[in-house]
C-alpha cells in the first residue's frame, strides 16, 4: 500500500483506480467467505461461491471504509508471542482460580501505570486486547496522549508484586512489537526503550 495515512488511519483515498480499491478489500471478503464455509461445515465449491457472493453483497451494501493496515509480520516472534501469552494465560488462570477458592477476601490487586513504547494504533489496540485477555491483568485506562496504560493486576503479593506485573506486561509488549510492528514501529520502540531507564525509574522511585 503506497497510501499516505493519517494517524487516525481512516483516510480513504478516492483517486485510486478501481482494481486497487477492490484489491484492498479482497482480504476482508475472503475472510468472510472462509467463515461462511466453516459455518456451513461443507467445503464444497458451491458453498464457497455462494459465500463469496454473499460476502461481496454485504460488504458493498454496508459501504465499509477500507482501512490500510500497517503491520509487519515476523513468524518466529509471533510464535514466541503466542507461547508467552498462552503460558501467561494458563498460569494466571490457575492462580486466579486458586485465589478464588482459597481466601478470596484477602486477595489484593494493584493498578500499575505502564508507559507504552509504541505509537501505532493497531499495535496499541492489539496490546491492550492481549493484556485484557490474560487472566490477572485488566486494562483500566489507556491514556493515548501520554502513551500510558493503566493495568489492574490480580493477585499482587508483596512489595515486588507491582514490578513483576509491569515486567510481564512489558514483555508482552516487546514480543508484540517484534512480531507485528513495521520497521518504523521497531525504530520508535528502540528509541523509547533507550531513553527510558532514567525518567521512568526516577518517577517510580518517588512513588515507591
Amino acid at each position: 500500500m503506497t497510501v499516505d495515512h493519517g494517524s487516525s488511519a481512516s483516510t480513504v483515498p478516492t483517486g485510486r483506480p478501481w482494481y486497487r480499491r477492490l484489491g484492498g478489500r479482497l482480504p476482508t471478503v475472503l475472510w468472510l467467505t472462509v467463515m461462511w464455509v466453516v459455518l456451513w461445515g461443507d467445503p464444497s465449491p458451491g458453498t464457497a461461491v455462494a459465500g463469496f457472493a454473499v460476502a461481496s453483497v454485504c460488504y458493498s451494501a454496508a459501504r465499509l471504509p477500507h482501512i490500510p493496515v500497517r503491520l509487519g509480520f515476523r513468524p518466529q516472534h509471533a510464535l514466541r508471542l503466542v507461547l508467552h501469552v498462552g503460558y501467561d494465560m494458563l498460569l494466571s488462570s490457575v492462580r486466579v482460580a486458586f485465589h478464588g477458592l482459597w481466601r478470596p477476601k484477602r486477595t489484593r490487586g494493584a493498578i500499575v501505570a505502564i508507559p507504552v513504547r509504541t505509537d501505532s494504533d493497531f499495535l496499541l489496540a492489539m496490546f491492550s486486547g492481549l493484556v485484557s485477555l490474560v487472566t490477572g491483568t485488566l486494562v483500566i485506562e489507556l491514556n493515548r496522549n501520554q502513551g500510558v496504560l493503566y493495568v489492574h493486576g490480580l493477585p499482587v503479593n508483596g512489595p515486588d508484586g507491582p514490578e513483576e506485573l509491569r515486567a510481564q506486561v512489558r514483555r508482552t509488549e516487546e514480543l508484540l512489537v517484534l512480531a507485528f510492528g513495521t520497521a518504523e514501529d521497531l525504530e520508535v520502540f528502540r528509541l523509547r526503550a533507550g531513553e527510558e531507564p532514567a525518567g521512568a525509574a526516577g518517577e517510580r522511585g518517588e512513588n515507591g
Partner: protein
Amino acid sequence: MTEVLDWIAIVLLLAGAALSFAAGVGLVRFPDLLSRMHTAAKPQIVGLALILAGIGLRLYPDPRVGVLALILLFQIFTVPVASHIAGRVAYRTGRVRSDLIAVDELQEQLDRD
C-alpha cells in the same frame, strides 16, 4: 490410537470444566468488581479453550470442527473489550474498593492532573 486421543479429550474436558467451575466460584466469592472481572472473563476463556479442544478431538474428522475454532476466536476478540469497558466504568464511577488495591498509580496520576 483413538483410545489415546479419547483419553486426552477427557483430560482436556475435565480440566476445562474445573477451570470454569473455579471461575464461577470466584465470581461469587471475590469481594469487588475488579477482582470479579478477572475470574468472570478469563479462566473462563482458558476453560472454554480446553473444552473446545476436547470436543474437537472427539469430533475430529468431521468438518464442523471449524466452528469450534470460530467460537474460540470470537471469544478472544470480544471478551477483552467487554471486560475492559466494565473495569473502566467501575473505576470511573468509584465502584472500586481501594482497600483491596495495594498500589494505585492511576489515582496518583489523576490527583496530579
